């Protein structure tokens, strides 16, 4: 279970304080949408939940453990094994193959490429991208790139998926495909949290956090 208690954050001491002591649980098996006007901290909350930022006050809890107080090394370990990230621009290395991109988090989690390759190919197959495994990101469409990012987020079978505007740069069809994949990931018991402006995404979410 992912939760925050009394959470506040500011980018600099004395700066604008965000979240107003937010306390909340994020349900497993459901999609939660983080929405609100620009500058209200949607992406920032996502990065706090992903342990890339430290709260000014309050805590981030993962399965009852105060994850926001863990060491940097332990936070990295949690990101590699328990948390999957999907970024707005997919964030794929243009010089590496799609297969290399998908296996990357598993390598940080301690897997070997030989051990993780079958699962990576299986995920690419599920998302209709198996034939693109040896291609470079520049050779696939934006929608396909975002599906590759989803495969990468799922490679370590994490319990939490954090998506930052995953449909922001996509056309309607591609956005629907990505959103469906995220919903499908949640139905397998994962906590899926999406930071979004998109009203359609908010409609599809089981839970909404208005910032």
């Amino acid at each position, binding site marked *: 279970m992912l939760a925050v208690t009394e959470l506040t954050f500011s980018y600099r001491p004395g700066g604008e304080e965000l979240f107003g002591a937010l306390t909340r649980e994020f349900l497993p098996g459901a999609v939660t949408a983080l929405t609100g006007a620009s500058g209200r901290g949607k992406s920032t909350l996502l990065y706090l939940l992903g342990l890339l930022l430290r709260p000014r006050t309050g805590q981030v809890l993962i399965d009852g453990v105060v994850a926001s107080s863990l060491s940097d090394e332990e936070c*990295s370990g949690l990101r590699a094994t328990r948390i999957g990230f999907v970024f707005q621009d997919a964030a794929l290395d243009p010089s*590496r193959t799609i297969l290399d991109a998908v296996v*990357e988090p598993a*390598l*940080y989690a*301690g897997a*070997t490429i030989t051990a993780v390759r079958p699962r990576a190919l299986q995920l690419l197959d599920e998302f209709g991208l198996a034939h693109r495994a040896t291609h470079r990101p520049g050779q696939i469409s934006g929608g396909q790139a975002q599906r590759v990012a989803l495969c990468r987020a799922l490679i370590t079978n994490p319990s939490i998926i954090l998506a930052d505007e995953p449909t922001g740069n996509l056309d309607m069809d591609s956005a629907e495909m990505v959103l469906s994949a995220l919903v499908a990931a949640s139905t397998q018991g994962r906590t899926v949290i999406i930071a979004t402006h998109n009203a359609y995404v908010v409609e599809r979410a089981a839970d909404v956090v208005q910032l």
Partner: protein
Amino acid sequence: MKPLMLLREAWVSTFTRVVPAVMVAVLCASMCATTLLTVGRTASAEADVMARMEQAGSLELVIGDNRNAGLLSPTVVNNVAALDVVERAVGLGSAVDVRSGTLAAGGNRVPAWGVVGDITAVATLIGGRFPLPGEALVSQAALEKLGHDYPTGYVTQGSVDYPIVGVFVAREPFSDLAAGVVFVAEVGTPAHTLHVITHTAAAAVLTQRLVLAIVSAPKLEDLTVQSATALAALQGEIAGDFGLFGRQLLLLVLGAGALLTGVVVLADVLLRRADLGRRRALGATRRILIALVMLRALIAALFGVVLGSAASLIVLTVWDVSVPTVFVIATVVLTLLAALAAALGPAVKAATLDPVTVLRTP
């Protein structure tokens, strides 16, 4: 992350962006080549100079018995020859003129020296046999001057005759003897001068002290001493100068190379900020990022040192300069260490980049 996977990741990412890798490789090749072609050549020149200074001619200590007081007896000569620091020691009498005793006309006069001690210390036999006391060896030049066709007969000095039993060539540093005759002095005859060849110039001071102790002249004025102690001091100074110059040059080359390598690696890190931020977000620890940046530099540097040392060795071969293998290995290792040291700062910078800032900056 498993070490093998880290190595694979570093290897692959080195070659996916070749420009910084090539620049690091070129810099390391230049460091290696410059070191070998300058410092290596200096080291080689130093070795040549030292070798020349170590030649026998430069290692000779000559003690003269000014008053022919019998200070340089055969026992003294033998005791000096037995010293560990001494390569050879031999006594010579004053030069005398001899002429052929075989030819009626007597032929030309040639110089002759009586040898006290081991005659092989001054002469290498090229014909006949080594002489017994009272017998002589003659050089080829002296043989011709005496008017002998063969090394037979005898030479005479006043009423003393010396049968010729062989031909010799003079050993270094006794080239003066090449013009004449050497004969084994009668048993018990003291030498006029004692010639001592040390193993190294560095041993000159000690040898002189030991030899003077063995000679034990009642008054020091009774002896003349020509020694290689000044040469030993000069040798030390030259070695020091060469060493200092070499070290300074090495530091300059490696320092400048490391600085430029550091700049290239830092530029690479800054250009790859998005890549590094993504890796952190996906679970890479700071240590992984540091290792990744340093391994990438090391891989590029490895290619550089192989290229640089191979090219330098070819040039040195063309120049006919021999650099010791250990120096080549040391240069390669130092260049790699310099590259690693240069990459450390940028690697730490990479590890401390804020992934959120990087990910949110277009």
